[in-house]
């Protein structure tokens, strides 16, 4: 089924021309196994019951939608926040890893490997591994282990092994390479718990489906707050793009303008061209010869030179637009939300807030209703921001 927006990809794992499965032959059978396992699980009410029970009883779902009083007044719009920062472990990443850990269990795999940038996905994976009694190895670029030292310790507390990655740019893209290398060697007993809507088919599809809960909850909650109406603008930050994909899935068939906000230094849609890396065809920052370029932003979670293939498709067909926020704007938005609403956001969703703050009263008309997915909380970033503002 490819007819409806944000439905299933085509049999080759494509959203329009993007996606696919560009992996070494050693990994093709594992991708096929995962595809079959997910299809079976997603059709199985017992799987959904189990997943929902964990997300509710352990993860704290549903998360609320909070109406911002003071910030709305200041910006002249009606601003709503989907509060994924209130999920257990502090970000939307838990939604995905609980689902994937349950899938791994169904496939008889007791070891999880993951890549992480900011550390949020690593913490979430370590948490799921602890919860289900699985082994866990997290690959994290050496640059990121330094700027997110607290999250490294948190993962270790949870029983995971954190392996610093010293190859390439020593950030998220290199952590993905290392996780894939681990997976090739250990695939018979290891599940690669990928953290975003990226990688080879079926990962972009699985992760979006597991994050769909964000958008579906938000849609119902927004209607309650907005007298039955949908928000006019739906905005989320995008690195690989999982919180945006989950959010957009809930609103793609409404009239809402969908906006993904990239880091100016890691803008695959903004500065990239189509290419293939990490198993997928999508927009990538790369040079003339096809060498992948290094992303650079204040936010480790958005330091990724690619973007999930479904976002590339949504951009190509014009259903979503992709904008950018600079590091300076992000720092302003970080402080602004803290002072006006008493919520310290992660630097990643501060990109979405920064774009909204810039465009309120301009592209976003006065009085418009705007939903921003607050994908995570800012505790992990407080020390870094303190240093930056000093």
């Amino acid at each position, binding site marked *: 089924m490819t007819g409806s927006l944000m439905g299933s990809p085509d049999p080759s794992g494509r959203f329009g021309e993007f996606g696919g499965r560009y*992996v*070494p032959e050693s990994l093709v*059978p594992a991708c096929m196994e995962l595809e079959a396992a997910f299809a079976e699980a997603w059709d199985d009410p017992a799987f959904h019951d189990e997943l929902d029970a964990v997300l509710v009883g352990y993860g704290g779902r549903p998360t609320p939608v909070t109406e911002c009083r003071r910030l709305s007044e200041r910006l002249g719009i009606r601003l709503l926040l989907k509060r994924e920062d209130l999920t257990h472990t502090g970000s939307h990443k838990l939604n995905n890893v609980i689902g994937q850990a349950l899938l791994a269990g169904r496939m008889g795999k007791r070891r999880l490997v993951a890549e992480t940038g900011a550390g949020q996905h690593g913490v979430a994976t370590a948490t799921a591994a602890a919860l289900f009694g699985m082994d866990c190895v997290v690959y994290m670029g050496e640059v990121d282990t330094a700027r997110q030292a607290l999250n490294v310790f948190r993962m270790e507390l949870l029983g995971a092994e954190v392996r610093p990655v010293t190859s390439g740019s020593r950030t998220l893209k290199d952590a993905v390479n290392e996780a894939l290398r681990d997976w090739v060697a250990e695939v018979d007993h290891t599940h690669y718990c990928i953290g975003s809507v990226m990688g080879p088919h079926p990962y972009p599809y699985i992760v979006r489906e597991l994050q769909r809960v964000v958008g579906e909850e938000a849609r119902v909650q927004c209607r309650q707050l907005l007298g039955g109406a949908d928000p006019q603008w739906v905005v989320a930050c995008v690195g690989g793009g999982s919180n945006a994909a989950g959010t957009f899935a809930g609103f793609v068939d409404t009239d809402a303008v969908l906006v993904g906000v990239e880091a100016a230094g890691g803008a695959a849609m903004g500065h990239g061209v189509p*290419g293939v890396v990490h198993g997928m065809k999508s927009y*990538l920052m790369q040079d003339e010869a096809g060498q992948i*370029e290094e992303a650079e932003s204040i936010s480790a979670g958005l330091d990724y030179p690619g973007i999930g293939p479904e976002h590339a498709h949504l951009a190509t067909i014009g259903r979503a637009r992709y904008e950018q926020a600079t590091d300076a704007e992000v720092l302003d938005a970080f402080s602004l939300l803290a002072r006006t609403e008493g919520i310290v956001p992660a630097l990643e969703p501060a990109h979405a807030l920064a774009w909204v703050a810039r465009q309120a009263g301009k592209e976003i008309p006065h009085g418009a209703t705007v939903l921003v997915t607050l994908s995570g909380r800012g505790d992990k970033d407080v020390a870094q921001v303190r240093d930056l503002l000093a």
Partner: protein
Amino acid sequence: MTEAPALVEGRLEAHLRARRQQGRKLLVTYVTAGVRADWVQVVQSVVAAGADAVELGIPFSDPMIDGPTIQAASVEALRRGTTPAGVLDAVTSLEVEVPLCVMTYYNIVFRAGHRRFAQSLASAGVSGAIVPDLSLEEAGEWCREADDAGVATVLLVAPSTPEDRVARICARSRGFVYGVGRMGVTGERGELAGSARRVARRVRAATDLPVCIGIGVSTPEQAAEACLDADGVVVGSALVRRVLEGASPDEAGEFVAGVRGRLDAGA
């Protein structure tokens, strides 16, 4: 099962078949292009030492199926400013008696464009291409352009590949079939994995194309062991490590001559 289109036997396949016919075990050596200023001399030296084909690595920024040695060589080659066009320029003037293949990742091919890349290989005298992250399902468009340009696309069979896929991959592969010796990335290992000979036997049962085992074939002894079931081997990291450690072209040749001698001595 996908029927392979009728194909004129390319230079790579003809050469390898002819040498196999002579009772010779095939030795394919991998060198990362651009890793040093004298990399072309390294290639000439390993050919003189008895390589039956040379696999030239065009470095890529994100070599996900490569282990630390070839990663380091790729980083170094890129640091030295190596580009696909530069490699092919150097190859054009390279006079060796054996066929050359390139090994690179798909984004290098995709970025150049299938037809342009295939034609640039052919113009440079390259007769084969190995693109390890291009799976059978994704390979069709590239393979057609490569066939048209007379460039053999060598496909890989892994220990994890199910039987029906082995047959389909062998039917689509050109030149030879690359048998992945072990589950994992490229790199030297203390022992040949048990999977290496099993993969060789499975490929041989599916095709008459030569089968060469690579990934984890590090020593003359391991090469000889793999060749108990395979037609040949691909030796990469063991050679590249020596080059990274400063081995001269002659010394690189000596290592290859050692593997050659062991293969010629038989099991």
